[in-house]
């Protein structure tokens, strides 16, 4: 188990440096995708390698000259990595327009560092029929652009095959998540995230081969009867992995993350694209029916609004009730507009339901871990009482 897990950890040591070598070896084009929700399956179906571009924990240097200080740190960090030559291996970039900031950042990327392929996808904000129609049009526009760039038609068969490959990978990640939930000692939360991040930064087929080994090793390990730790549901921190130091501190203090809705966690693999004869629609449905998120609006989620009252807060409450977690830790990335706007209604609902939670403001580089020690320890004491 440890040996196979170590392979994933090594893969995450320098994922983008590794891709430089991969590209030379495989002579394949690589398309960088900013988080979240780019339909990677289409890029793979076009014969290229989609890679998720995640910010690093290193201090931002050159990007500060170009961006406002209130730009979220994922965008500042990835742009800084671009300016520092960390993304030399990519031939193109796809920006999902999930928030206001990425729209402006996208224009900046295109102006400062024009790639042979550059595409911005509008993702539907409304989770209804009109929203789906809009999203389908956007995905078709993306497909056409990929075809134009690659000079190859992307057949329905190729998309279906790609979806199948991605679904296989997602199913294995879900199985591992389930095993880790039942046996938190299987691996640390940070190691689990590394398994997910490696999936974002390498060909899915290769990752799946490794994952099969990891899952079968994990299945052989017997879960202990009792877990002497406080189970937590970890939320927030979209678009980037939370700091290892923070995740490790939670575990050091006696917490254990048994469920999450992180992009570098459950959110990435929670939903499959169900094949129904129209693969483009399958991809759109995957987004529309996927787990709620602060960038999505479900008609009915606001008070007095017609529709079903699901939305992000409803999803989280439901998620918590089904989980064995005793409390919720909400990691609020500094300057993330969608999550900032969502938090007050989430907080109100959590208080109504009397679900214990703590919000922690996090950032990739501006964060000081030590003052959090007391806060996290006190929260765990509240949950243990």
């Amino acid at each position, binding site marked *: 188990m440890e040996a196979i897990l170590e392979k994933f950890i090594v893969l995450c040591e320098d994922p983008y440096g590794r891709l430089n070598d991969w590209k030379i070896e495989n002579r394949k084009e690589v398309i960088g995708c900013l988080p979240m929700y780019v339909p990677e399956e289409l890029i793979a179906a076009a014969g290229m390698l989609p890679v998720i571009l995640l910010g690093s924990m290193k201090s931002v240097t050159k990007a500060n000259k170009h961006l406002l200080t209130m730009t979220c740190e994922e965008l500042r960090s990835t742009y800084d990595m671009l300016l520092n030559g960390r993304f030399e291996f990519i031939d193109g970039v796809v920006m999902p327009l999930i928030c206001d900031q990425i729209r402006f950042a996208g224009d900046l990327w295109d102006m400062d560092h024009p790639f042979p392929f550059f595409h911005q996808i509008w993702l539907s904000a409304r989770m209804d029929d009109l929203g789906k129609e809009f999203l389908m049009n956007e995905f078709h526009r993306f497909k056409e652009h990929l075809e134009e760039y690659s000079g190859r038609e992307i057949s329905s068969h190729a998309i279906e095959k790609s979806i199948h490959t991605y679904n296989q990978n997602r199913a294995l990640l879900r199985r591992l998540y389930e095993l880790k939930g039942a046996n938190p000692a299987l691996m640390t939360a940070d190691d689990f995230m590394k398994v997910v991040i490696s999936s974002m930064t390498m060909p899915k087929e290769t990752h799946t081969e490794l994952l099969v080994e990891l899952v079968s090793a994990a299945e052989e390990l017997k879960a202990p009867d009792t877990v002497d730790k406080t189970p937590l549901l970890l939320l927030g921190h979209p678009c980037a992995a939370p700091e290892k130091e923070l995740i490790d501190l939670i575990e050091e203090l006696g917490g254990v993350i048994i469920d999450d809705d992180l992009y570098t966690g459950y959110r990435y693999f929670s939903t499959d694209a169900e094949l129904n004869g129209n693969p483009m629609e399958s991809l759109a449905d995957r987004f529309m029916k996927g787990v709620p998120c602060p960038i999505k609006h479900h008609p009915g989620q606001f008070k007095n609004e017609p529709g079903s009252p699901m939305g992000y807060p409803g999803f989280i409450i439901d998620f918590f009730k089904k989980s064995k977690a005793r409390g919720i830790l909400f990691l609020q990335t500094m300057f993330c507009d969608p999550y900032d706007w969502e938090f007050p209604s989430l907080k109100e609902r959590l208080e109504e339901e009397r679900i214990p939670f703590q919000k922690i403001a996090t950032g990739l580089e501006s964060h000081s871990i030590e003052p959090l020690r*007391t*806060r996290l320890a006190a929260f765990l*004491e509240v949950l243990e009482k």
Partner: protein
Amino acid sequence: MIVAGIDMGSLTTKAAIVEDFDLISHSIGRSGVNVVEIARHVMNEALGKVGLSSQDVERIVATGYGRISLPFAHRTITEITCNARGLHQQFPDSKIIIDIGGQDTKVIRLGPDGTVENFTMNDKCAAGTGRFLEVAAQTLEVDIDALAELSSQSRNTIEISSTCTVFAQTEIVSMMARQTPREDIIAALHVSIARRVFGLFCSLRTEGPIVMTGGVAKNSGVVRALENLIKRRLFIPENPQIWTAFGAALFGEKKQ
């Protein structure tokens, strides 16, 4: 059964000696580099006041920022849990605690059983804490204990606009250069702290009696400024710095 609670804060170290759930002695000393020696000294001082020695203490519970550094403690618990425990034991009607210490500010909501139901604290900077006042007092060349009295003599309302401790210091220096009365500057500082704390206070449901503890609770200028914002009376217990150490000691008692 004699138990001791030691609260090792960033500015002061407090020890409470408890016998059968009653506070029998306490002591407060300045925190410093050698946290272990200071903690031992403060505890021994408190014990000495009632004719006891460390040999008489059955259990020691450490809390506060330095709690993890105390090798002779039998248990460590966060100051949030200890503060709630201590205040609930002594003042069972308390529902909300505002604790302003040397480097952090906490607002704690207690549940019906007196345990912590929810809490919030500053996590980004030390503005709105005791350190903020200490830096300001140094800049103004006044004793920190004289701040409250001086602010009560203020006749003009002025604003300290910065919420950053370092920038506020710059602002104070500029005001002094413009010969702004010191009393007015101090009153403005108190309002500035109160606003920061009020922001935290508003993020929790805060019905019920409010108790204020921590070193800053001794400053009636801050208390007044905070009461003006909250529009409710704050109850300030005698010796507002020691209740967290008292709560820690209670966790050392056999019967919880």
